[in-house]
């Protein structure tokens, strides 16, 4: 019984924490203090609930064997029984409880002054919130009694309003509002606002108003972070320090760090519907906030644009971006922490040797236009190429050369030297050898190397090396370097047809989820074996787990990430498109 009541209390808290509400016409921002630095709201929780109930993803998840098994567990059956008790007490289904309690919206804020987090729920009418609070209190008391503990509920009066404390949570209702907070000062501030309608609130804060005015219209949820206050508070110093120790992160989002060092706020908007999920972050942005060291990111005038993404067959991922790699390399000392700068120096030394003594940052990367593309594609081995036991995707980078006639031969020589070096070290370690080849078509030249298959090698079970047939290609001003000859050839043909207009974004990434699913399916025996070893599962259990993973991935079609700066705002978005049923 104790377990049931505890679960019942949990259910109610879950209902509360996932809810939204109603009408006097004040919003949560009207009740929170102007010193609130983190704020998030769901204006129409009822709509979210309906979407949750009918979403194709949920239906797909519920069909998974692992989820069906979870529904049969003792814990879930206990949860269901507790839910039934709550529904009986409130006289309606949990969905209706949630809708009535949260009809006016739900919001949460964190106040820097009191260090308190406050959850505000606006109910449909003045009866719903107190009724829910009474049920919470009743269940908490019953659970404590069953456990032989003393009454866990304390109460007190503040300006005629009764407030309750259960564990660390302070709860009160007034009119259609229900407030939960962890700090008494935060609770008092909200109750004061409810009773007095103060002049200064979060809603009247100019910065918040500016952020609010730029919010997209129909977001399912919206959030605001006062970055200026966080910066001044000395929190997350590393984020604002300007130097990183992660070159990949710098390459992908380094320019945003400059913005974060100056911007007053960041907003986040989440939009959900049956076919899409979109999360967008936005922040004010000024070109003069970008330091010289990071001009490589947005370009000297802030208008660096990513080239139009290339499409290839069986594509898994395409990244297209504006980046001046030469400037980034030469500015490494201003961008990275000392240990990373040392590694850049070592890399410079090795790469200069490889490129016949040329300065890698200036003379090699400097010959490349400030843009590049990165493509990952599934390998099908349909063209008769050897099949390795573990099937890895192929990947390639595409650059645009400033002077292809001059640097092309240089790159070709370097590639041939590298293959020769790999063959020598490979033979010392008993690895298969690479065979060089050159092919020409009207629009491109391809230089490739393919691993020779040993006479007694088992077909379909070759070493992991056979995923690679490194190649470079020259197509007009484009230079392709690829892990696979087939991908290099396809990319060279594609770019050889001429360039499309650039995007209006700084960077764009698109992940084809069904392609990821295909490549996992290609390696299913390996995934099952890994699961057996790492989870201790039997083969049947492992097959089921991997099957569920593939089934779940099959729900999504693509994931896109875009980054761009325009109209005084920098925007980053993540969008998931689901497979239409």
């Amino acid at each position, binding site marked *: 019984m104790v377990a049931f009541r505890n679960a019942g209390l949990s259910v109610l808290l879950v209902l509360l924490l996932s809810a939204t509400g109603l009408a006097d016409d004040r919003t949560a921002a009207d009740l929170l203090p102007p010193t609130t630095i983190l704020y998030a709201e769901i204006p129409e929780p009822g709509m979210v609930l309906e979407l949750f109930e009918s979403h194709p993803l949920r239906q797909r998840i519920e069909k998974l064997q692992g989820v069906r098994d979870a529904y049969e567990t003792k814990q879930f059956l206990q949860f269901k029984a507790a839910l039934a008790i709550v529904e009986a007490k409130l006289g309606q289904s949990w969905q209706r409880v949630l809708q009535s309690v949260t009809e006016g919206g739900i919001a949460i804020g964190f106040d820097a002054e009191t260090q308190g987090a406050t959850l505000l729920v606006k109910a449909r009418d003045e009866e719903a919130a107190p009724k829910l609070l009474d049920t919470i209190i009743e269940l908490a008391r019953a659970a404590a009694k069953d456990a032989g503990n003393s009454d866990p509920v304390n109460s007190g009066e503040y300006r005629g309003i009764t407030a309750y404390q259960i564990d660390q949570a302070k709860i009160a209702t007034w009119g259609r509002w229900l407030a939960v907070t962890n700090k008494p000062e935060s609770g008092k501030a909200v109750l004061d606002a409810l009773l007095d309608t103060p002049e200064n609130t979060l809603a009247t804060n100019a910065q918040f108003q500016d952020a609010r005015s730029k919010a997209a219209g129909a977001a399912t949820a919206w959030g605001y972070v006062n970055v200026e206050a966080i910066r001044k508070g000395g929190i997350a110093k590393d984020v604002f320090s300007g130097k990183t120790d992660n070159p990949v992160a710098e390459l992908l989002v380094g320019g945003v760090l400059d913005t974060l060092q100056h911007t007053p706020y960041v907003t986040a908007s989440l939009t959900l519907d049956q076919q899409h999920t979109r999360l967008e972050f936005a922040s004010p942005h000024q070109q003069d906030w970008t330091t010289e060291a990071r001009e490589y990111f947005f370009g000297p005038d802030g208008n660096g644009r990513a080239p139009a993404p290339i499409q290839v067959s069986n594509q898994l991922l395409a990244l297209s971006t504006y980046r001046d790699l030469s400037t980034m390399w030469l500015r490494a000392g201003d961008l990275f922490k000392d240990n990373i700068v040392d590694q850049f120096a070592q890399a410079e030394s090795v790469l200069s040797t490889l490129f016949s003594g040329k300065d890698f940052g200036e003379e090699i990367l400097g010959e490349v236009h400030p843009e590049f593309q990165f493509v990952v594609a599934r390998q099908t081995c349909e063209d008769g190429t050897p099949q*390795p*036991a*573990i099937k890895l995707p192929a990947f390639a980078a595409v650059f645009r050369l400033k002077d292809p006639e001059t640097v092309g031969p240089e790159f070709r020589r370097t590639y041939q030297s590298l293959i020769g070096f790999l063959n020598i070290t490979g033979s010392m370690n*008993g690895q298969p050898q690479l065979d060089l080849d050159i092919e020409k078509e009207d629009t491109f030249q391809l230089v490739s190397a393919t691993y020779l298959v*040993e006479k007694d090698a088992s077909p379909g*079970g070759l*070493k*992991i090396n056979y995923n690679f047939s490194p190649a470079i290609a020259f197509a007009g001003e484009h230079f392709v370097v690829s892990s696979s000859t087939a991908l290099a050839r396809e990319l060279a043909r594609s770019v050889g047809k001429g360039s499309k207009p650039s995007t209006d974004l700084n960077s764009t990434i698109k992940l084809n989820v069904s392609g990821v699913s295909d490549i996992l399916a290609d390696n299913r*025996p*390996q995934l*099952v*074996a890994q699961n*057996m*070893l*790492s*989870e*201790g*599962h*039997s*083969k049947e259990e492992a097959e089921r787990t991997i099957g569920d993973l593939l089934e779940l991935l099959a729900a999504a079609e693509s994931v896109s990430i875009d980054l761009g700066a325009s109209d005084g705002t920098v925007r980053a978005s993540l969008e998931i498109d689901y497979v239409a049923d």
Partner: protein
Amino acid sequence: MKTTAIDPTWAWLPYRASEEQPWNRGRAAHLLRRAGFGATSQEIDAAVEKGPEEIVADLVSPRLDAAFELESDAFAKTILASGDPKNLSAWWSYVMLRTPHPLLEKTTLFWHGHFATSAAKVEDAETMYNQNRLFRQFALGDFGKLTHAISRDPAMLTYLDSITNRKAHPNENYARELMELFCLGEGNYSENDIQELARCFTGWEIRRGKFRFNQFQHDPGMKSVLGHSGPLPEGKSIDVVLDQPAAPQFIVSKLIRYFMFDEPAASDELVEPLANELREHEWDISHVVRRMLTSQLFYSEHVIGRKVRSPVDLVVGLLRTLEGSTNAYQLGDDLNQLGQGLFYPPNVKGWDGGRAWINSSTLLGRANVIGRIIRDENTRFASGNLNEYFNRLDANSAPAIVDKLLELTLAVQPPQTVKEQLVEVINRNGDRSERIAEAIHALSTIPEFQVM
């Protein structure tokens, strides 16, 4: 010290249940611990029902489950695709936990320690796996054929720096170890025998991971090995070594130490009857193992509780006993940490075993590993937690759980005070599964838990 006190005639007579030495759950559990990696309560029930002869016959001549063999082989090949020999430790740990043929696996482990070869030097996962298959193929079969096969095994020859062996400079490593560690033991050969035997192996090479006989580098001249003279080509020299009287004596004494008792060393008189039988049965290991596991000696106080648990016996044994499954990668690492890394023996002598497993440092390490494994989030017992597991065995109260635990895991029962302390641990407030885990952790620290 030698076991002169044990009468060989009495020792090797078949065990017959009697009032003094009844065939009961304790003796059945002893058999299944020694001939495998521990047994579940149900397996002990089945063994009691069948009797020692039938259960040993099943163990020694397992009806191979074709589906399991195929699955295991496919599983291994999948692991090999990664090319990392460290994954093999995880693979073998998993196989030991789940195999329906525990004696076959335990004997495979014996040969791995006997013909010790480490992936640390060989480096190639497939080469190590092929050697492991070889051990499994001959584990309970013909030792003579196994010795011939291991002499051409790429992993072994790579490990002993014998991938090239030229007549101008014969490599003595394999010749020395064949006589000293693999077939005869010290004192049964001379330095001259080593040099002559090394000449027999000239031209035996490993090329691109495979054995090759290079006739141009073979010394075809006359040799004299252990009193036999001639060109001794194509492995005839190995037969000369195997024909030595010391050979079956050496192998049987190692098998006695592995399956029966660590100390004292078996006397020549005790070893001789089985050594003779091994020769008579043309090196059939299964015959000798069957004779040991059905002997009067095996079920006597000379054997029960007289072996120190190796890390594999300790960890895999506990998990198999409680129908446990866990993260095999971590399990492989744990075994390595405790000094018995699968595919990574410390040197060509293999693991010393016996008392060498135990010192103040390893004792703490063994208990810590047990404590970690039973609390690992991936460890499950018959797909559930410990409380659910003991409930399934109808052990619901703390005393019942302790009784069941001790019966399943210990060959020698601890003092009553230990039992009372374990009951007290389980009866403490808090999650029952965690309390049982704590009791097992505590149990793993006592001396009785270290032997079997």
